[in-house]
């Protein structure tokens, strides 16, 4: 090999190869260091990247529960997750290779409502709101006023604020909340990521706009029960028996009762 083709953009080939030797440390090296040194485990969070729609999900937790999560599509990589996590919580996130118990299966099944969340940094109102959002099943949508009612609040302002503060998108499924007049309400991680999360659960863009086409609630003329249109019970109603309603009042006047699963607002 001659010396002429031995240089690459100012650096020699040997130097290029050497720079390529700088791999990342084993995933759990930092966590093992902290354990060995004896830093108490409540002084830092550990985190992991898990397979999920929208570029996977970074999830961090303390001994109390999940402290933060972010879809991979909203970040440039693990370093950015660590920095954002610190900016938001003031806590250092250390990589690990062992997931919080229950986390992997919660993501696989979509049943995230029972996953422990570290609520220490949140007000009781914020917690009530985000807990209500956790009650929206996978593949379904609920309007803001539904969250207001579930969290026993006077109006939607606090809900908007709390949704924007959502520490753990996907685990606290704020992508399943819509505006009352239709359209997704992606306040935490943006419409693009929100759309990807919804698509992965079989929620189409069209479904978020149903209220605009006059379909706020859907009733069945055989059972005389009305639901949110994405409720599992509403989806089972066969086309000839579908009765759309523009409001709960209209449904009640027609002699229908609210579904006990999706709890439409009876106002």
């Amino acid at each position, binding site marked *: 090999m001659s010396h002429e083709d031995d240089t690459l953009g100012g650096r020699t080939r*040997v130097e290029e190869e*050497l720079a390529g030797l*700088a791999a990342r*440390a084993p995933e759990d090296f930092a966590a093992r*260091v902290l354990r060995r040194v004896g*830093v108490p485990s409540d002084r830092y969070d550990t985190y992991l990247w898990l397979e999920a729609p929208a570029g996977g999900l970074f999830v961090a937790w303390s001994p109390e529960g999940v402290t933060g999560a972010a879809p991979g599509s909203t970040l440039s990589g693990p370093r950015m997750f660590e920095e954002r996590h610190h900016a938001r919580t003031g806590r250092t996130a250390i990589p690990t290779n062992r997931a919080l118990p229950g986390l992997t299966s919660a993501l696989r099944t979509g049943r995230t409502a029972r996953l422990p969340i570290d609520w220490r940094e949140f007000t009781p109102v914020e917690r009530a709101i985000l807990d209500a959002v956790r009650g929206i099943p996978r593949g379904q949508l609920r309007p803001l006023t539904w969250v207001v009612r579930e969290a026993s609040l006077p109006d939607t302002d606090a809900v908007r604020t709390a949704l924007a503060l959502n520490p753990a998108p996907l685990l606290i499924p704020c992508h399943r909340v819509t505006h009352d007049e239709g359209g997704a309400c992606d306040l935490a991680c943006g419409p693009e990521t929100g759309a990807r999360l919804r698509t992965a659960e079989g929620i189409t863009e069209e479904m978020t706009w149903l209220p605009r086409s006059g379909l706020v609630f859907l009733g069945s003329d055989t059972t005389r029960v009305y639901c949110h249109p994405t409720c599992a019970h509403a989806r089972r109603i066969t086309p000839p028996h579908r009765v759309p309603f523009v409001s709960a009042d209209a449904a009640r006047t027609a002699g229908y009762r609210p579904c006990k699963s999706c709890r439409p607002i009876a106002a």
Partner: protein
Amino acid sequence: MDATAARLRERLAKDLDDGFTELVRVHATDVHVFLQRVTGSAVEADDLGQETFLRAYTALQGYSTQRRLELRTRAWLLTIAANVWRNHVRSAVRHPVVLTDPERSCDHADDGPGPHERAANASDRDMLVAALGRLPERTRAAVVLRHVIGMSYAEVAEVQNCPVGTVKAQASRGIAALRGVLETDNASAGEVST
């Protein structure tokens, strides 16, 4: 990076345990990569890396707030790592480990390739790693700090505790030696294949 370094120093000064977790987050990779490339073994790098941070923590406990605020954390940590490594090399020479446990000697925990594998896929990268291991210790450390970790010559000089000029000489001597190895190996490989 400077903002990160300043924040790290502040956290170290304010609360040792909190600052130390940040120190580990920011520098664990540098320490591990340095030790892996000078020792040639990921397993040893793991052990010596733990030892490095343990020493760092003990030292920080004795430092005043002012001293923690002035710490150049990366150079300081890698100085400790380099010392831990040199001590390890010295004691390994004086007290060679005799493997009496047959299970341990058969079941090689080290993840380096065996001699067969090494011959079969002797890529440039593997040859480079092997050649790196044959460099004298100080030269090897200088090459790894400068070209693998990407430190400035001033930082490397701080770690090696010698003038910048000396470090530059060490690094360029090291690079020249590595280039020589790669060229002769490639040349001989070429001769064999044709």
